């Protein structure tokens, strides 16, 4: 890795993904990194945020001044509501997800494969208690599934691979990946790079990726 690569910060990744969300989309943001997208939606663009515990129309995190202890999101943070919000129960909430009504879900991932498979809920090496939450429902149900992740693991292993080695969350569902190095479409013929950070060569990106890349002209 050369020093000239302008690796995106987490807020930059969030801004980059947020820029691509059209007005009017109903969006569920996974716990962790994807949650940062909420604060990066361009001003004046109406995007409606869904939380699987029964909220449509989530606003920013609550502050000490406006906190309602009875309002939490799926990450168990206290959130606000925007005008036009609606509250409902868990079965109705997952009807929205499973029924294909959520335009977009953005999730983190351990691995994404070139066939659109995603592994983001458990690692086989890991002896922690298995816990899935709403990840499988979201991955199977959202109309568009984007992944937001660092391009490689902390130890430099690629997270974009030919086939996932960790247990799958869902198969063939990822449309697009936002990493700290590139924006990549998952197409019928595999990973297609549509954007790279400044200073990064195609060869360098390929060397950090576990499957073949094509590049949009």
């Amino acid at each position, binding site marked *: 890795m050369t020093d000239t690569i302008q690796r995106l910060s987490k807020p930059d990744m969030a801004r980059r993904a947020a820029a691509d969300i059209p007005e009017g989309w109903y969006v569920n943001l996974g716990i962790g990194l994807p949650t940062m997208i909420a604060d990066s939606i361009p001003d004046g663009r109406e995007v409606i945020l869904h939380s699987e515990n029964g909220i449509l129309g989530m606003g920013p995190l609550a502050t000490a001044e406006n906190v309602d202890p009875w309002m*939490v999101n799926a990450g168990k943070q206290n959130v606000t509501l925007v005008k036009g919000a609606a509250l409902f129960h*868990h079965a109705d909430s997952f009807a929205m997800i499973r029924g294909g009504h959520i335009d977009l879900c953005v999730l983190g991932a351990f691995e994404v494969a070139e066939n659109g498979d995603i592994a983001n809920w458990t690692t086989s090496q890991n002896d922690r*208690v298995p816990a899935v939450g709403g990840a499988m429902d979201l991955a199977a149900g959202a109309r568009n599934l984007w992944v937001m992740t660092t391009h490689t693991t902390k130890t430099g292993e690629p997270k974009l691979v030919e086939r996932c080695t960790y247990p799958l969350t869902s198969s063939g569902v990822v449309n697009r990946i936002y990493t700290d190095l590139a924006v990549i479409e998952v197409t019928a013929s595999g990973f297609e790079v549509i954007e790279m950070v400044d200073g990064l060569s195609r060869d360098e990106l390929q060397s950090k990726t576990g499957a073949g890349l094509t590049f949009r002209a």
Partner: protein
Amino acid sequence: MINKQVASMQEAMAGIADGSSVLVGGFGAVGQPNILIEALAEHGARDLTIIANNAGFDPDIGLPVLMKRGLVRKIVCSFPRGSSVFDELYQAGRIELEVVPQGTLAERIRAAGAGIPAFFTPTSAGTQLARGKETREIDGRTYVLEHALPGDVALVEAWNADRWGNLTYRGSGRNFNAVMAMAAKCTIVQAQHIVELGAIEPDDVMTPSIFVDRVIHRPCGDPPIAAIAS
């Protein structure tokens, strides 16, 4: 005159037998029927199957209290993380775990309440969690057959309740509470407020009284603040 309100926790817990399956509402700190859970621990029924989204958090609040006493044989949930009591019991092989995707959990409980014994869902198809389950291709997509998940008992936290058992929930507290209330032989409610019959407008009822068996008035105040913007 119908009056589902009971005065004591003994009445609220009456008849809950060893081996019962117990649906427990709530998500995060909101809508957790902690007072009922602790009363169930006092009641002492053993060999319970708990169905809930989480396995609890704080060792001294809610489900961990029940688990510490050795009353829980099995837990069915989507996200059993963040509970040291559960972790220890699980690692020691002293509690069974069935992990269910959150939406499948909600839909299996709703199915139990709605008289649907089984349904097909796309969730978990092709994953570890579908192992051993019947699958079927319908219109070119693979689905997994899931079965209804009823409870002998449901423990529910509500905001308002009337003497018939009509309920409202506050904020995001509807969550699993409103679904589980439908799905148990005996639905027991801990209510912050008891209101007059008719005080809840017909359009505003979130759980119709038909799903509720017992109501106990326990004004326990707000849940703790979880996490706010820094």
